[in-house]
């Protein structure tokens, strides 16, 4: 039956992560954006929240939490409310750990999961996005073909977070000879020093500047069949589900960024005076804020709906796609409006709204960059 209430446990988690986002992440956001580095102590502190190790079984050192897309959406929203780049950094290890957790072969689980359930942050990542205007998850240009008992990978990836810092990269590629579409995608866990793998200098992006991202080139990259995610046959890999989870995560992060901008603009508008009164008392500003409030809530509900569908084990591909696109567009509009509410001050780097606008613009490019 319909309910719009988080469970007791989810509320507790939200409060904890929200406090962390407000008190720890937010103050670090601007310096991180300017310098391109995230303080190690902050990342270490986030590790104590169990953001990655939570759902990993205790036999691998994890916390045995039940994995829930709704809870994941709540956490992702709060972290991104703090800062998107820092959130993506903290959650990057999930990109390899969770697919292995859910869909890896037994050997893969034994080999990789303990690494992400230890007592400190270990970078991990996945290579998904490709540098093409019409990049599409279901039509990757990176291709894997069988070669004897192993595979050969060819292709070009970009926006790979922490590629240089991570020992292993989960690379997604289309299987040669198989029909295109999401179910034709295979995953391969590749050590980043494997011959044929080249990782570029760090990318320079418009936003999320604190997140280290890289291009990754695969040229005649030969790997063994054990590297294929989901066991040697790859049959356990459910890429449509991973796609849905990623969309929920990114949608939730869009909500977080949008909410940050909305709240900042709202509070500013109550303080800033023009013509003798706070600008929030003028309908031109007040109505913008009202629309921003509606869209934050609407985006969140759409994201939660897709997440709840995932938690029931049902197909959420369409829901998560529409929700993510909606949240991405809303985040862009809301952050832009926030800059507008602040006027000239919004354009100055003293206030965070310009940074949020730059960050929000990225959601149309960040396919697969996070998961719940």
């Amino acid at each position, binding site marked *: 039956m319909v309910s719009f*209430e988080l469970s007791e446990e989810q509320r507790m988690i939200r409060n904890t992560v929200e406090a962390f986002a407000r008190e720890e992440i937010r103050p670090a956001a601007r310096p991180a954006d300017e310098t391109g580095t995230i303080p190690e102590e902050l990342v270490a502190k986030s590790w104590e929240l169990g953001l990655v190790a939570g759902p990993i079984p205790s036999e691998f050192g994890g916390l045995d939490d039940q994995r829930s897309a709704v809870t994941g959406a709540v956490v992702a929203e709060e972290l991104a409310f703090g800062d998107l780049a820092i959130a993506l950094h903290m959650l990057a290890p999930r990109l390899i750990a969770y697919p292995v957790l859910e869909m890896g072969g037994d050997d893969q689980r034994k080999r990789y999961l303990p690494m992400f359930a230890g007592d400190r942050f270990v970078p991990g990542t996945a290579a998904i996005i490709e540098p093409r205007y019409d990049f*599409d998850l279901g039509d990757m240009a990176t291709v894997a073909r069988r070669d004897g008992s192993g595979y050969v990978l060819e292709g070009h990836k970009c926006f790979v977070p922490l590629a240089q810092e991570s020992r292993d990269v989960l690379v997604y590629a289309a299987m040669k000879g198989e029909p295109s579409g999401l179910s034709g995608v295979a995953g391969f866990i590749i050590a980043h020093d494997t011959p044929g793998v080249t990782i570029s200098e760090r990318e320079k992006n418009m936003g999320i500047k604190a997140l280290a991202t890289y291009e990754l080139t695969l040229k005649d990259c030969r790997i063994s069949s054990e590297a294929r995610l989901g066991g040697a046959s790859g049959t356990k890999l459910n890429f449509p589900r991973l796609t849905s989870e990623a969309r929920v995560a990114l949608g939730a992060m869009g909500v977080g960024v949008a909410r940050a901008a909305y709240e900042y603009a709202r509070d500013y508008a109550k303080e800033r005076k023009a013509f003798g009164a706070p600008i929030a008392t003028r309908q031109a500003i007040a109505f913008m804020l009202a629309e921003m*409030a509606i869209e934050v809530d*609407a985006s969140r*509900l759409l994201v939660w709906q897709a997440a709840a569908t995932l938690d*029931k084990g049902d197909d959420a591909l369409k829901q998560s796609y529409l929700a993510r696109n909606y949240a991405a567009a809303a985040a862009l509009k809301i952050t832009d409006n926030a800059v507008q509410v602040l006027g000239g001050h919004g354009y100055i780097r003293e206030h965070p709204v310009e940074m949020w606008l730059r960050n929000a613009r990225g959601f149309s490019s960040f396919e697969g960059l996070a998961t719940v």
Partner: protein
Amino acid sequence: MIDFELGTELCQRRDALRSIARDVIRPISREYDEREHERPTKFWELMWNASRQAELRPGTAPRGGEKSDKARSPEYRNLATIVLTEELCWGDAGLYLSIPNPGLGGAAVAAAGTPEQKERFLKRFREGAPKWGAMAITEPGCGSDSAAVTTTAVRDGDQWVINGTKIFCTAGEMAVDKSEGFVVVWATLDKRAGRAGIKPFVVEHHTPGMSVIRVENKLGIRASDTAALVFDDCRVPLDHILGSPEIQREGGFKDVMATFDATRPIVAAMAIGVGRAALDFVRDFLAEQKVTIRYGLSPRRLSAVERDFMEMEVQLEAARLLAWRAAWMMDVGQRNSLEASMAKAKAGLAVTQITQKAVELMGPLGYSRRFLIEKWMRDAKINDIFEGTQQINLLIIARRILGYSSKELT
């Protein structure tokens, strides 16, 4: 726990109404759009007899916040109301509004009346011949500014004497002199008291001094009559005032607001029903034209039509979730003024845009009265106007999120 699935029982009732909407309402939809002011009496009889479920009738669902045995309504009656409203309005929003029911008058009784008054005034909707309830608040000189009503109520012995003119009264004619219904009239006891002096009065059908002077011709929802009423020394018994006759400093006007908290999600649901009608039609139309909507592709690979259609679809879903939330909050006893206005503002505008886009997507055929698309565009527009315009709802939302009073943010 977050859950967006309706229970089995509600799904069954929804499906039953879906059949009525498809098999009974839709076939006469165009007819009563073209023949404005004609009365679909057969349809009314059918709905009156078939739909004895209280949930079909806005106004009879108890507010969750009330201290009654339904305080935490296990049936989620407000949610059920909006789910079912969507179905009927998928059939036809004008015909939905014309269905004999307590209407907004009933909603006012439910929100502001004592338990005794609720029983006395609402009982009639469970028995006898079809009846209508109506609400009269808007005046020629005040619409959104409902605190400025000039209609007066003066006590004279054991009666209230009401004088004034009201317009835009949905089902007013049916409630006033074509059935044994009633009109809830908002009138001021003391203009100097401002909104605190404004009180709702139940005026029974055929009360001398109350008359219908006009039934409006409209852009859409033509199957629903919209009346202008005059009250000329219209006398009603003392116990026909809803709530307290005392003019509290802040109290009185809250009754109006409480009514809106209940009805705005319903208006949102009406809009959503019309929007879904248009969306379903366009989906089938595009399929016939061999256009497939390819969900999941990079937006850069989609056609403009696909992008438009997906946008319409997700906007509608966003509006629906906001409406469900607002209704659900009432069911669990939470104050929902903010969320009700959010749902109404979102749905009213989204569906106005969805139906306009639907006309565009069908090309010249969208403009033709051969199809109902053009009608839905006309019908949709009212949802962005009545029960608080888009702008009034934004104003309410803004006041709430900013913590401003109606004096601080005008």
